């Protein structure tokens, strides 16, 4: 049996500010992971990665991350991505200061 597909989200950094952003279902880029489109299968993942990469004047460094759904809301599974949702741990800078 093949392994179950781990849900994914397309992420990148905003070209102008460098902020971490996530691709939404309507092809916008949100600063919040909760807004992201959760991808449930491989083929769709590849497609959305291409969609994200086709906006080089808005974002840089587009890639897919694994997420786990908690009450339907995507949460990062790796600590690197968890830090990217917040900002650095030594100062209250970045998203943790701006969003929450």
């Amino acid at each position: 049996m093949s392994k179950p597909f781990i849900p994914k989200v397309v992420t990148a950094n905003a070209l102008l500010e460098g902020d971490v952003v996530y691709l939404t279902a309507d092809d916008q880029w949100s600063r919040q992971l909760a807004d992201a489109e959760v991808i449930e299968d491989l083929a769709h993942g590849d497609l959305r990665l291409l969609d994200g990469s086709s906006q080089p004047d808005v974002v840089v460094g587009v890639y897919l991350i694994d997420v786990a759904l908690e009450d339907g809301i995507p949460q990062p599974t790796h600590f690197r991505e968890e830090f990217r949702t917040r900002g650095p741990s030594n100062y209250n800078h970045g998203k943790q200061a701006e969003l929450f």
Partner: protein
Amino acid sequence: MYQYNDFDRDFLAERNAQFRAQVERRIDGSLTEDEFKPLRLMNGLYLQLHAYMLRVAIPYGTLNGGQMDVLANIADKWDKGYGHFTTRQNIQYNWPKLKDVPDMLDALGEVGMHAIQTSGNTIRNVTADHFAGAAKDEVADPRPTAELLRQWSTDHPEFQFLPRKFKLAVTGSANDRAVIKAHDIGIRLLTRDGEEGYEIIVGGGLGRTPMIGKVLRDFLPKADLLPYCEAIVSVYNLLGRRDNKYKARIKITVHENGIETIRDLVEDRFALLKPQFGGVDQKMLKDIEAQFALPEFKNGSVAAFKDAYHSDPVFRSWADTNLTAHKNDDYSIVSISIKKHGQTPGDATSAQMREMAAIAREFAHNELRISHEQNVILPHVHKSHLPAIHARLKSVDLTTANIGKISDIIACPGMDYCALATARSIPVAQQIATRFDELKLEHEIGDLKIKISGCINACGHHHVGHIGILGLDRAGVENYQITLGGDHTETAAVGERAGPGFAYDEIVPAIERLIGAYLQNREDENERFIDAYRRLGLAPFKAALYPEVKADAA
């Protein structure tokens, strides 16, 4: 101090104008990221985890008050009010916006500073002993040599696309404070039978394959420096591997071909190159040396220093820890720790930068240095000014008396900023410093170098720390590997792995057990951690780090 000439200024202005146009073309979409990335890296602009990062060179760590003020202004105007000083005598800004970077570079250019060759496969910022020109133990000031190398390597047409980055460091003292044995080329000024010259070390480096540099020439006459260095770099340029980025540094070239082969090739090439230099370089060096003339030292009583030293225990503790002998007995070298317990190693706020700049102007011949250990130095201070300087530093929270101690930790940005990181390093440094401050053990422990990197690239020099800590990702969890017995000085050595790594919340207790074992086993308080380690070997430290293993075996 060295003043950039018109050529330098015009060159900077032109480079900045070029980059401004490139940024505009990136923003309007006419350049893709693939096209733009090498251009931004050539100008010191990286993309990190949460934002861009601009890396600015501070050649051989030397700057004046006016330049430090500009660094502070940039932090306020375009960043978040602080900057991060690094092990390569650079400053990094962690939050610039793409469209602001050209303005930041113009502001730097006005005081002769820039971000050129802080990235890419070029010859990078030339580093030097941070006590250069002031240290009592030096043969000669290494900075004229470093500046000559900077001028030679900047925009050198042959060396813009080397197999990999290339780093040079210069020291003028037998006591190496510039880590020259962990550089692609390490240079030490010396005299032999009254003649000035250099010892040339090649093939050192850290990263995934740490190597201690080897002596290529034990005495190179002073006049031969540039042709000889050019010979080394051009031999490397041809021989260095371009097929595998992990094997591309000169340390691997030297390792694979053998130092003798490299020496023969370099000598052959040198014989061809030497006549081409024709002495122009030596005339340049003479002019540069004149600009690095020592300041006019002041004569006067040092009684104010002695009084404060005897009457004020806080001042005394700071003076004992943070001052170093100067070549003029009435002077001191002041190390300003930017590593208050619990703070981020190497970070200074704009207010702190301005106060340090003001102190340098008022009391210290307008000179400042950045050390590879991520502190700020006032190289020339008449001892009578020390009490006033201490009071001024206190007003901006900069009087931590910990230079060379357990909390004077080198830490790379790690996963709090760096996109290549496999784990965090800053919070580990913060917690170790805070813990040993609470225990009030810092001065009891004495001299100790802890160095932390957030991945195998080793920007935090962990291989050459007495205690090195390397942060890794082990199956999706942060894990910290300890190495022991590393040495960054003239007796350079790569540390030895102590055993399995520790989880994020186990690393500080592990360090505490390690220090406990040292305190228990040392001969007396004069035996430093590194000396005890050399005498005793790994065993007692390993037993302290892994008590359960010992219990199981018993």
